[in-house]
């Protein structure tokens, strides 16, 4: 594994990306690794742009913002268009085809699934799209262990929502295991 692994989770406000970033970062803390999590968003709590960066490393992390991603998750077309150029050549791109219809560049390792539609159909609400896609990403990249993610979710969301989010997580893992390129 690379010494330092940079992840950007991107989309629009209200999609729960900052929470997803926190959950991923906390999973890394559980594994006693170094981590920074930063975010950038508009002043509104809904709509507008939103992104969360997570850097996981075994060494001291100097600059906390992801600049050259090992992995990019894009849940909106706009986010995909803007951030795709900063994905490394070998980087992994994960897109939500519910909203991302065009790719400006052909990324080598691209994974496409309609995460929002799947969350709506299988889990009854698009609200779990963040955890569904995050679990998918964790399974594909192996950046943290599935059990760390599970524990992190339990520590990060309100008790009433743990079960729903764990269900979304399991579904994300399944989708990744069964994914055919």
């Amino acid at each position, binding site marked *: 594994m690379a010494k330092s692994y940079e992840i950007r989770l991107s989309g629009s406000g209200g999609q729960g990306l900052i929470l997803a970033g926190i959950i991923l970062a906390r999973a890394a803390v559980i594994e006693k690794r170094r*981590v920074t999590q*930063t975010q*950038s968003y*508009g002043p509104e709590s809904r709509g507008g742009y939103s992104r969360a960066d997570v850097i996981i490393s075994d060494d001291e*992390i100097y*600059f906390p913002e992801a*600049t050259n991603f090992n992995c990019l998750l894009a849940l909106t077309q706009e986010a995909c268009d803007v951030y795709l150029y900063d994905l490394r050549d070998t980087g992994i791109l994960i897109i939500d085809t519910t909203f991302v219809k065009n790719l400006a560049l052909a990324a080598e390792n691209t994974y496409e699934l309609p995460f929002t539609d799947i969350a709506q159909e299988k889990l009854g609400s698009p609200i779990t799209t963040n955890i569904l896609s995050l679990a998918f990403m964790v399974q594909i990249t192996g950046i943290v262990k599935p059990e760390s993610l599970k524990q992190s979710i339990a520590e990060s969301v309100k008790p009433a929502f743990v079960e729903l989010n764990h269900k979304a997580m399991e579904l994300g893992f399944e989708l990744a295991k069964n994914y055919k390129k």
Partner: protein
Amino acid sequence: MLKKNTKKAEPKKTTKPKATKNETKLDELQSTRERKNVLMQGNEAVAYGALDAGVNFFAGYPITPSTEVAEILSAELPKRGGVFVQMEDEIASICAITGASLAGAKSLTATSGPGFSLMQEGIGFAKITETPCVVVNVQRMGPSTGMPTSPAQGDIMQAKWGSHGDSPSIVLYPDSVKESYELTIRAVNLAEKYRTCVILLLDEVIGHMREAVRLPDMANVRVINRIKPTVPPHWYKHYDENQKYLSPLASYGEGYRFHVTGLTHDSHGFPTNKSSEASEMMERLRKKIDYNIRDLVQIESHQMEDAKIAIFTAGITARAAKAAIAMARAEGIKVGLLRPLTIWPFPDDAVRKMLRNVETVIVPELNQGQLIHEIQRLTKDKSDGNLIPIQRVNGQLITPNDILRKIKEVS
């Protein structure tokens, strides 16, 4: 040659908090937060640092990107018998923490640019009356409402010169979540020790960033409390000139019945129009900072031993600089970083040494040129060509690559 990391710890001796009448015992107030490795936000670290330093009074007004400090303290202070109050505006907030401090509280407020501007008159009052308090300013893009959720380092000069009249400042500037915790404690300690309003400047990114942090055990946290007078009330001088500019401080309700005024005052605190007493007061405010520079200044010297190029910057931009230095050194370029943790008083001596030892200084900052003026002030014998600015004010950070490009240009 600069000493590597001259970070100075607080004096070794832990001053045991004295519980006086009407005051809550500090032991009860300190954070009960778990001391294990946890993911923590910068603003959260400020809140827990405040609690661990013994802050028992917070008055504030919500403002992005500092609001988390108020939110956490609104939950935590009542548990410890401390006071949280949301005031009607930032002016009222700085006034309330100053009033509470005079009644014996360790007090703090947190705000951002617009609120910091509103507080300036009150900060001047806390300074002239030598009342301990801490103002945390999580900086955002300005001027005016600007970009509330975007980072900028535009308040460096305001933190020094914001209030009218000359009033020497103590301003601290962390670059990580852990350091936000540490410097909050230090800010509270310095406020108590030097009887002044200490300012903690955070970058928006630092305030909102999360990192893994293990808070130290309380036994390892050094807390400084103000010196209380031991003389009988009729001997008490609120600004005792015989105490090396660090004079004991009584609280309201303890029998001392002293007077506090924002007017220029004599050593008892009574207003004066005599020019001799006015200059004595002004000198006192200056000297208590100037004579204690060594205690106040903290700098980090990173890979400066053999550096031909130095980067001078603070906060989040120093993190970009460190990443750039790692990349440049991989290519054999000798470059280092000098980072002030205390931004005011300015580390003149350390900067002079740096200037003697390097050929070029790069000053990246998220403003249109503030820190660089201080370097210029100390750069009499260097041509302007050796002082390279990198400035950005569009809400985006200066990245490691931006700095690396500049390093390569000048190397």
